[in-house]
């Protein structure tokens, strides 16, 4: 196979801050005990394999993909629960908006029940709520979607553990190194400080980074409240003389 020319002089992605990110082994979250690697991770600077990523075009999105109130509902119906708008920006560590980022989100219904074959919580399913949505960020990295506020629910870990209300997010940036899954919590939820999964976060600052405040400026009066949730992906290092053309 012919040798391809040298890759472009990107600086590569800034290393992930493993002191800031949660550890793999967090015994109070019991499932992590047998699912956590024990050997040290192999640290390497990113290569083209991690600095590239699949491309998702806005044209793949359906009109209701970012409207969880209606995207699974019968015609003329809507999901039950407090109507909310979740909005924010996807940024990188350098503070730049990330356009074209695919966001996928999923959540329980207003009663705390997920639509999944393996889910057995006694709260009822909402026939008009599927619980998933997706969108792609605009040029400035902004996004928004409409949904209902999910309910807290019990889960098997300790004898009486409850998850705070939350929405799961899966995010693609421009490089596979940026791939991230996280969860958004709601300002003021008393379950946040009790939850063993929130508890894997190492600092209050990290918990705050995943807690969306009520945003009255974006509410729709007499319709929906709004919560703001910014997401930060890894940034690329700026190389010395990055913009200097060869030979100059």
């Amino acid at each position: 196979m012919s040798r391809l020319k040298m890759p472009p002089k990107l600086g590569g992605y800034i290393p992930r801050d493993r002191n800031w990110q949660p550890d793999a082994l967090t015994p109070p979250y019991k499932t992590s005990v047998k699912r956590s690697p024990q050997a040290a991770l192999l640290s390497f600077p990113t290569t083209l394999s991690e600095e590239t990523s699949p491309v998702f075009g806005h044209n793949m999105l359906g009109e209701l993909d970012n409207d969880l109130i209606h995207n699974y509902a019968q015609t003329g119906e809507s999901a039950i629960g407090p109507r909310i708008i979740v909005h924010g920006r996807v940024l990188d560590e350098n503070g730049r908006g990330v356009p074209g980022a695919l966001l996928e989100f999923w959540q329980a219904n207003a009663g705390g029940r997920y639509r999944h074959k393996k889910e057995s919580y006694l709260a009822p399913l909402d026939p008009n709520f599927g619980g998933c949505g997706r969108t792609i960020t605009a040029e400035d990295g902004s996004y928004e979607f409409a949904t209902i506020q999910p309910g807290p629910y019990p889960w098997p870990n300790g004898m009486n553990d409850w998850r705070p209300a939350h929405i799961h997010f899966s995010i693609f940036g421009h490089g596979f190194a940026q791939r991230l899954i996280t969860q958004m919590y709601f300002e003021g939820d008393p379950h946040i400080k009790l939850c063993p999964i929130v508890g894997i976060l190492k600092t209050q600052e990290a918990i705050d980074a995943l807690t969306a405040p009520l945003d009255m400026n974006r509410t729709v009066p007499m319709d929906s409240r709004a919560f703001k949730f910014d997401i930060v992906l890894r940034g690329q290092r700026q190389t010395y003389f990055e913009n200097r053309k060869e030979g100059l």
Partner: protein
Amino acid sequence: MVQKLDYLRESPSQTAGPYVHIGCTPNFTGIDIYGGDLGTSMKTGPVQGTEITIKGIVFDGTGTPLRDAMIEIWQPDAAGLFPSANETRGTPDPHFTGWGRSPGDMDTGEFVFETVKPGAVPFPDGRMQAPHITAWIVARGINIGLHTRIYFDDETVANAADPILTRIEHQNRIPTLLAKKQGDGSYRFDVHLQGPLETIFFDI
């Protein structure tokens, strides 16, 4: 006080949880939406190069298969070009997406990728890397997605010169990164989250 570095911190990771499939492969869980799940097929037409199948299972530290994981792979085409906006070295195979996503089998946990054998891609210093696929694994109990690589056990010469494989301290762990050719022509790549066969995971 010195000046402030006004960088932002990466959003902290949280587990994908037991219901990641609702969000990422909803049709797999019976939620009929989007006209199909993303990443189900990596080919949109006749592809260049050698078509291959990779199968595997993710095991926990007790040897139990994970049945609630999601595995994604990302790779170049047969010529070593990525179907990415960041690919500036040439035009990749128009019928190959480079990206696959599998929820694994609901009962056995086995994932299957129908793809092509990737071409070689240079390391930042210009040396060629052995053909490999980037893999990313999330599941309940995994607090931050696990990056690893799938190399191939029939690429002995390229593997022996790979800039990353040659720098691994515990060379006896390299087989954990090798997809093994099976009698039927497919490749096997099992992932062990911990234990004596623990897969090498990357901080990359």
